[in-house]
């Protein structure tokens, strides 16, 4: 398969450490000479970009004369904070760090595919699956921490007599959540690429630009929806306090 130039770079420079890590977790790479995959490299690129961006932001924070970057980041923070408070309830803003990270990470990963020479990591099944599994453990963890052992009472349903019926239904629906999160994000990004490529094949000129615009819109929307659904799940897990 054709490698990206940056994957080639990573494979030539860092294949030793990559093989060491992969062998250490007993999950050896399929091709020992090129252990880095496209999506892994692009994920690392996004992470490095975010670290650099926030380091830059941190060094330029100012109360009297905020710069453009600070304005944009303040808008993003307000957006996530307001959504968390509205969807999760009063305790929402405690988890703004997680939701904001999800949003920014997924957004930048989705958009990276539009830059020539890179690919969206979210267009491969493993990346949305990882995000969905993390979200699954996060919302169960916060539910347990907020409610203690009483967290499991919500699986029993409204009346105790209905419990044998409700428990399998609740378990299945709780496992369907990370599945649907994964497939939604993966299929949107993957299908967006395929549609763009198809129209690039059919009409070589201006029409594919419309599809890039659509893909950009869908990238924003899918990042927002992943964050919103994570908030809804956390809200459902945390809300049985009162």
């Amino acid at each position, binding site marked *: 398969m054709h490698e990206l130039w940056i994957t080639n770079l990573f494979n030539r420079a860092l294949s030793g450490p990559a093989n060491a890590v992969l062998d250490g977790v007993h999950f050896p790479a399929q091709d020992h000479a090129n252990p880095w995959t496209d999506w892994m490299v692009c994920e690392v690129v996004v992470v490095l970009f975010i670290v650099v961006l926030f380091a830059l932001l941190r060094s330029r924070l100012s109360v009297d004369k905020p710069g453009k970057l600070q304005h944009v980041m303040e808008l993003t923070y307000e957006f996530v904070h307001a959504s968390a408070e509205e969807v999760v309830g009063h305790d929402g803003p405690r988890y703004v760090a997680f939701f904001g990270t999800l949003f920014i990470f997924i957004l930048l990963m989705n958009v990276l595919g539009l830059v020539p020479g890179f690919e969206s990591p979210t267009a491969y099944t493993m990346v949305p699956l990882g995000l969905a599994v993390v979200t699954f453990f996060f919302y169960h963890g916060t539910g347990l921490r907020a409610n203690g052992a009483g967290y499991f009472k919500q699986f029993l349903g409204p009346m105790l007599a209905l419990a044998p019926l409700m428990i399998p239904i609740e378990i299945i629906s709780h496992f369907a959540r990370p599945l649907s999160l994964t497939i939604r994000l993966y*299929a949107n990004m993957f*299908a967006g690429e395929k549609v763009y490529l198809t129209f690039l094949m059919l009409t070589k000129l201006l029409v594919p630009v419309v*599809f890039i615009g659509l893909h950009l819109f869908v990238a924003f929307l899918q990042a927002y*929806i992943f964050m919103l659904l994570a908030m809804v799940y956390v809200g459902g897990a945390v809300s049985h306090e009162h």
Partner: protein
Amino acid sequence: MKNKLMMLVVTLTVLASPIFAQEANNAGAADANRRAAAYIAMGIAAGLCGLGQGRATASAAEAMARNPGAVAAIRVALILGLVLIESLALYTLVITFIAR
């Protein structure tokens, strides 16, 4: 309103066009019938998804017109509903690729 409806119809029609991507993938599928069934399934899923999203958008637009103060909350509910309905059509798309 009519412009937005046209835009929505065009967008949904275009979003149903991943079916073209099927014909581009000639990598030796096992059975022509399986592919035909997958195409038809995708068409049905896209059509019903379009109907569902149309109803959701129509209700949301009417609610926003009746109650301009609640526009923000209705917009959130609309986006959430549209994406959940969309994801059903996307599951069909994924199965289409699995059945090749």
